[in-house]
């Protein structure tokens, strides 16, 4: 006990702690740097170039000429008549937007109608079997989207399984044309995006306290009233999350409408692709891409708004 220790002063201690904290934060930025650099360069950053390209003039063989123009943006919704030079609504585009919106909404509603009972079913299994059911819903989720779309195609093709079975049973004579219709796209998207609805709804039902439902029965509610008045409001956050998870990729879908919709029943994503392929109008493609992204952002912001509003109600 002979060594006399220097008393540590408050200032020195605070300084030491602040230094340590600063070093810690710098280290954290350094560690994040590779991921941030890759994403900035090869995912987020190029979006700015798209914005720039949407204000340029299309080149003769694809790509662009560096001449400023807002034609691409006006062309999103209107077109100039080649004969009398008047402006008209771009009917082709508008019908494609309308189809995208319509099919995305239909897909969201259908996945909800089929997905909510499925999620509820999985969540009410015993702990042992629940994981198996969950596994069964996760497999399609991680299976190649193209492969699943091909599977749907096999089913509804003119020489597909459904038509063959119906013909063998002599219910129909000539095959029903299902491929290359809006029905095919809607059916296909419902099929491929269903797990995206089931999983978040399941997550919120799993957290549900079923004593609340018991309380509902105790207070003379019928089964349906219980479901409508107690279960549904409590799993609403999961349903909203599921809806957004289905709606957003539906709106930007490319593979499923391309395979099942064919060359005529285009959706937003296919219209964009067209501008970089046969259309050779990169600025228009860029403007359409930005429009799609803005639509999706609006949906996401709307989602965060209502889901945080829901939190306020609960908390």
């Amino acid at each position: 006990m002979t060594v006399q220790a220097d008393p540590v002063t408050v200032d020195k201690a605070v300084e030491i702690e602040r230094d340590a904290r600063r070093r810690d934060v710098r280290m954290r930025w350094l560690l994040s740097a590779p991921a941030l650099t890759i994403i900035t360069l090869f995912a987020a950053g190029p979006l700015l170039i798209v914005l720039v390209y949407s204000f340029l003039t299309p080149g003769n063989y694809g790509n662009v000429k560096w001449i400023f123009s807002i034609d691409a943006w006006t062309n999103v919704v209107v077109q100039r008549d080649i004969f009398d030079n008047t402006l008209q609504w771009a009917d082709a585009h508008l019908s494609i937007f309308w189809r995208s919106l319509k099919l995305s909404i239909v897909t969201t509603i259908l996945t909800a109608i089929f997905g909510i009972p499925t999620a509820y079913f999985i969540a009410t299994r015993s702990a042992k079997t629940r994981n198996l059911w969950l596994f069964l819903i996760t497999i399609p989720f991680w299976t190649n989207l193209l492969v699943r779309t091909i599977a749907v195609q096999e089913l509804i093709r003119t020489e597909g399984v459904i038509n063959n079975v119906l013909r063998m049973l002599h219910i129909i004579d000539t095959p029903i044309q299902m491929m290359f219709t809006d029905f095919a796209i809607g059916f296909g998207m419902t099929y491929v995006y269903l797990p995206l609805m089931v999983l978040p709804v399941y997550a919120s039902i799993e957290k549900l306290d079923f004593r609340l439902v018991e309380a509902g029965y105790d207070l003379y509610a019928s089964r349906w009233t219980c479901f409508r008045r107690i279960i549904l409001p409590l799993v609403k956050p999961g349903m909203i999350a599921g809806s957004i998870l289905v709606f957003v990729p539906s709106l930007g879908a490319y593979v499923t409408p391309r395979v099942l919709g064919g060359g005529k029943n285009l959706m937003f994503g296919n219209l964009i692709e067209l501008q970089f392929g046969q259309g050779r109008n990169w600025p228009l493609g860029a403007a359409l891409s930005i429009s799609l992204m803005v639509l999706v952002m609006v949906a996401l912001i709307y989602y965060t708004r209502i889901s945080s509003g829901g939190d306020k109600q609960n908390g």
Partner: protein
Amino acid sequence: MADFSLFSRRFDVKRVPGFASVALGVFVMLYMPVILLVVYSFNKGTNLAFWEGFSLRWYVQAYHNEAVQEAAFRSLYLALIAATLATTAATMAALATTRTKKFRGQMLIYTLINQPLMVPEIVTAVALLIFFAMIKVATGHTGMIYLIVAHTAFCIPFAYLPIRARLESMDLTLETAAADLYASPWMTFRRVTLPLMWPGIVAGLMLAFVVSLDDVVITEFVKSAGQETLPTFMLGQLRRVVTPEVNAISTVLMAVSVIFVAMFFVLTGRKN
């Protein structure tokens, strides 16, 4: 609570009439097309509609198809490189963004890492097409590097999520205990942190691998001539006559996904 059978008539608070039937219908509907696809990949005949007996001829044909071989090989090594790079970057980022007091810019890091999930794939694909077209014109280089960096970028959020979840469920006192037992910061990381977060890293790697292997849209837009991967090859085939060869390739791809998902479940489901 007693286990109840699917259609038990006894009173159960959890039962909602009709839900079990809808759910079972959904599962049948979900699996029937896939199962049919698999079954017809073993069909002897060329016709996709009629069963003509068991055969592996489409697998053999696909195996001997040079275009398929090449695409499969390209898919595999692209997925392997992209998943490895993405997982490395994601592991570092996960270590940086978890288990700390909030710091300035943390939200920015989160948002940026998850950015590829927020934007429709077709938009990212278009953006990369334009960006890489500029570079290709400027440098004249058209290698696999474009596909590799593009895949790495969109795989990062998928690798990041399970690693971050793993880190957040880890007990911080374990590292405190290691420090208490004379371990230097580096030894603490090597002997305690890394072994404990390992299942998360492997899960992230597998997820990133499957996501890269399955990608169609971005690959379709970024690839140069002669850089088909299995999915883009199949997409191209669909424009022509559909043969059960596509079914055979699909079945193999699906098998790979199922194996990976099963392993992922085992790795993330087991708590410590």
